[in-house]
């Protein structure tokens, strides 16, 4: 089992009257190679779920085993390494660094891995080729369209060849055509063996996933596999 959440709670302001249970006893298992869509309205806890799964945040209670390792026992440094090597993030707002060019942005996770300049460049270029942007590596993010920026973000996420791709509303800021393109990339990555976790509020997008997990008020209300027709 790649990902295993057991009775996970994330509670803000615990014990106070205004306490918020963003995750209210969630248990979930995700296997290697799955394509899972986590769907829910805003405030359902899906973003918190993504933060916990992505080791960006630590659950208040409950166990999170990532590839057999108990995440709650890891130091900040070890968590950084897991984010760096195991997980590739794709965000709604792309989250590229504005004063770095495309190549430098894609190289960034490789720099934090300590990979030498030549190898780093090759790996970053390979990732950019896969998203079809190898001819625009010297551009700054602000000089590109939203779709292109999201492809840069995908290149950054896959440059380290992580086993897990986590996408938080990756199509949220894009028109439907470029949105479909981005979804296509995710499906291709899944076909090539990556585990993809897609967070979305859009049922239409969720419909393209092999497995749909529905969240409401911090609890899982539905978890079912479905037949999808990928190109």
């Amino acid at each position: 089992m790649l990902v295993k959440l057991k009775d996970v709670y994330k509670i803000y302001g615990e014990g106070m009257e205004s306490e918020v249970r963003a995750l209210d006893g969630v248990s979930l298992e995700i296997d290697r190679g799955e394509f899972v869509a986590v769907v829910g309205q805003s405030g359902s806890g899906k973003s918190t779920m993504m933060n916990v799964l992505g080791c960006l945040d630590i659950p208040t209670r409950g166990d999170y085993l990532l590839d057999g390792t108990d995440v709650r026992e890891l130091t900040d440094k070890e968590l950084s390494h897991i984010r760096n090597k195991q997980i590739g993030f794709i965000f709604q707002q792309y989250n590229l660094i504005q004063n770095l060019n495309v190549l430098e942005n894609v190289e960034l996770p490789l720099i934090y891995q300590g990979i030498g300049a030549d190898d780093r460049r090759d790996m970053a270029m390979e990732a950019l080729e896969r998203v079809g942007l190898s001819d625009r590596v010297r551009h700054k993010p602000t000089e590109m369209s939203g779709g292109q920026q999201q492809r840069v973000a995908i290149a950054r996420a896959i440059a380290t060849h992580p086993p897990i791709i986590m996408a938080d509303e990756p199509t949220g800021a894009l028109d439907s055509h470029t949105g479909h393109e981005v979804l296509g990339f995710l499906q291709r990555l899944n076909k090539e063996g990556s585990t993809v976790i897609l967070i979305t509020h859009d049922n239409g997008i969720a419909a393209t996933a092999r497995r749909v997990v529905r969240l409401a008020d911090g609890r899982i209300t539905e978890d079912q596999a479905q037949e999808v027709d990928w190109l």
Partner: protein
Amino acid sequence: MNIRQAIKMAVKSILGSKGRSMLTMLGIIIGIASVMTIVSTINGMNEQNLKQMEAMGTNRIDVSAYLYNGQNAFEALYNYCNSLGSDLVLGVTPNSNASATVVYGSKSSTAMQKNQENMWSMDGSQQNQGNVALPPNLYYGSDQYSVCNNFTLAGGRDLSAIDIKNYAQVCILGARAAQNFFNYADPVGQTMQINGLPFTVVGVYAEKDPNSNWSMDNVIVFPYSVSRLIQPGTTMNDFTVKAASAEAAVEATSRISGFLTGLTNNGKSGNGYANSNNQWQNSVNEQATMMSLVLGGIAAISLLVGGIGIMNIMLVTVTERTREIGIRRAIGAERSSIVTQFLIEAAMLCGIGGLIGMALGTVATRVAGKLLVHVDIWPSPAITVGAFLLSVLLGVVFGIYPAAKASKLQPVEALRAE
């Protein structure tokens, strides 16, 4: 992530936001430049003072002796001082100004007097900054005048005891006086008119105070005995004694005081005193040290304010770049990587600012030296290197707090920032 990577990243970040970088550096530039300028200018000024004091002569004892019967006390003092021996006293000379018209060819002290009057306009401001010839200061001296006043001969011969004994109509010129009257021709052997009397120039002193119009070199020295020819009825009451050392000055002062007591019959037939000028020089030195401390303190405060400015900007930068820090943390940057990045950025900003400040400080020091003290001052290498190291140190010290603050953010909180 290694240091080379961190440095590259810092360079990119600094170049990526030039406006912010300039603002950060401004504080350090002004701080470093002002510290350098103030410290260097004070140092130059002190050196100048010291040189001037040295030129004037250290270990001088001012002696005044006045006898009611109108006799000249100098000969007795001269003989007494010379009997003290060269381990106590090196020389003794009258220290009296003469007043006379000096003429050589078309040059005259009367015309030079006009120059001096024209230097000042009616409102008291100085008009002519250039090198004009000012009237020479005339002195009556003994054969030991040059020893007492730290003059060395550049040409010809010094006054001799025989000149004094024989009322010889000779004189020695200071370097500036020689230049004013003879331009660059050799004055030795020439005859000048002093109050209409012919005086032969027998020697020229070497230049010892090249800096101002009111130079110590603008002097003409006569044997004191000829005062009766130039200004009949003059008596010599003020004298200068040159002691062999600071310790000798103390001893000689007390001995001469004793001698004066005897000479004036314990004040009944005259009065007299002897004072060493070492004390005065010490107090001048002390004042200079005080001034360095006070102004150096002010400069240090300006540097501190510059440093606090850096800290502020770094804090604002961190707040502004919280999202960037979040992104970096999300894709795997460790806390230490973030700290390193911000530290290097701060140190580099301060280093670059320090270099610019050093250049500016050098220019400002040169200008201040020329305008304020009229001396060629270069900032000392020690001050320059010190200021640079200090600026980098400030960057590191003031970079630590914001960098530590930035690294403590949870990635998810940092990502939420707009």
